């Protein structure tokens, strides 16, 4: 039993030079990765196409990390008639939702596709995944369902009322929330 313990950490504090260089690379790669995440987030907002979606908040508050709101979008639950695939949708399948602008400036879903559809200039495509399927419709998730709220804004979100959310969709498909408009009407 005891040899195991002693052999786990070799009593040699120095690791050889080539391995130390590997270590430096590994730490540098980690730093670069985190910077990359930040750049992707920044670029999605800077280069992406912005559009507005209708939503409403559900149960705000997070114990660990300040405040966030869960958002339920109108495009989270869609009628099954919008499905354009040859086979019925399955749970956890990828789905591309075609969005077209409405007169009030927000976007609404006009079709759900198993593959990325072609668009005209007005339309936009949002990638999601199928969560549940029932007889009349499907519930989808987009990764936009949570918004980390600046502290000053959280009090205004506490009631359940409709909101407009501004999102940005990058040319490579990534989407993120840019801002919230709390003054929207139904």
């Amino acid at each position: 039993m005891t040899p195991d313990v002693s052999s786990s950490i070799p009593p040699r504090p120095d690791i050889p030079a080539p391995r130390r260089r590997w270590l430096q690379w590994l730490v540098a790669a980690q730093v670069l990765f985190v910077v990359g995440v930040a750049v992707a987030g920044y670029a999605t907002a800077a280069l992406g196409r912005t559009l507005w979606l209708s939503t409403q908040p559900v149960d705000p508050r997070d114990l660990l990390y300040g405040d966030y709101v869960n958002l339920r979008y109108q495009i989270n639950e869609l009628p099954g008639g919008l499905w354009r695939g040859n086979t019925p949708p399955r749970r956890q399948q990828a789905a591309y939702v075609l969005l077209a602008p409405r007169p009030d400036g927000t976007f609404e879903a006009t079709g759900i596709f198993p593959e990325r559809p072609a668009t005209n200039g007005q339309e936009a495509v949002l990638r999601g995944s199928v969560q549940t399927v029932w007889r009349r419709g499907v519930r989808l998730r987009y990764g936009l369902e949570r918004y980390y709220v600046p502290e000053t804004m959280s009090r205004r979100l506490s009631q359940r009322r409709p909101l407009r959310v501004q999102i940005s969709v990058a040319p490579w498909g990534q989407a993120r929330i840019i801002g919230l408009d709390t003054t929207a009407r139904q």
Partner: protein
Amino acid sequence: MSRKLLETDGQDWVQRGIITEQQREQLLALYPTDATAIGLLPLLGSLLVGLSALSVVAANWQGLTELVRLALLLGSLCSAYAGGEYFRRRGNLNLGMGLIALGLILFGASIVLTSQLYQLIGYDLTGLLAWAVAGMGLTWLYRSRLLFLMTAVISGIVQGYNTGQLGAFSYLTAVGTALGLGYYWWRRPDALLGGVLATGLLWQAALLINFLHVKITWFFIPAMLVYTLGDWQPDRPAGRALQGPPLVAAFLFTLGLALFGESDFYAGQLRAPLVPYLAALVAVAVLSAAGKRQRGRLGSLTDWLLLLPGFYFTGGLPLAVATLVVLYAYSGAVLLRAHQEQNQDRVTLGTVLFIVTTAVAYFKLTWGFMDKSLFFLLGGLLLFGLSWLLRRRAARTFSGPSTPQQ
């Protein structure tokens, strides 16, 4: 541990003339005093300092600009690694490894917090996967058990998040864990790491079975592959530790089958297509037997008794009875081998298994027919008698050494 024994008993040995005083001192010099206790205080101190810094940052996190937050994350990440390397080089290995482990945790935290900063709740697993890859790289660079353990846990978390939240199974993560950590364990066999590795792999196998929506009995194919790896491992204790989790899973499964198997509904849930399942199982069994032969441990073939696919039999009670027979055969075999090898721990294990099996059998076969008070009375007597018998048997084995019985 060894030094303690030398310090306490050494004088006695000298007096009995087993070793000379000089030899005692030479022996003591072989085992220098452990520096871990001294290393613990700075570790606790730095933990407190770190926690206070963390709370200050967390309280003001929202007020900081994006760039400052990013700089804080990356700064603490780099200083954890640099500090770890510094203390390692100065010989303070525990503190050094602790800081490097902290660096790995900070890397994961940085990915999550940066994603939140930019409101990214993406679908791709890249971020979490990068965390697991970093852990794997550090494990290999530092040859550290702590980092091995953390990497196994991180890979499990990555896979759990992936199947649970994103609805996909990452074969890359599973294969990466199996190859990266598995090869590490193969080269540096270790009992604790074997158990950790097997548990991590079984967790991912279970997630895969759940994700594929196939019959849960398929789980035992990857589980027994892990077991087979233990057969080929030249280091016996490490191999046995790797085989522990798959055997526990198989035993619990068989126990469940004995308890609930007579309802054909449950058994029906378990019946994978007969030919492919049996073919796969037999293939793994052959591989395992070859490994046992190679390492001269054919006696442990009795482990495979637990894998007998009794659930293909229809027809209620006979299935339960057949399963109980298998359980008895297995626990009996464990006991028998333990007595042959004169292995105290295995005797205890075998005894417990035997008694559990008896309790299940008794419950199963008599609950319906007997008055409840009589049931408990007889059951209690049966268990008392059984444990007395087994303990007497064990006592006899260990009192009379060098007589390999049966």
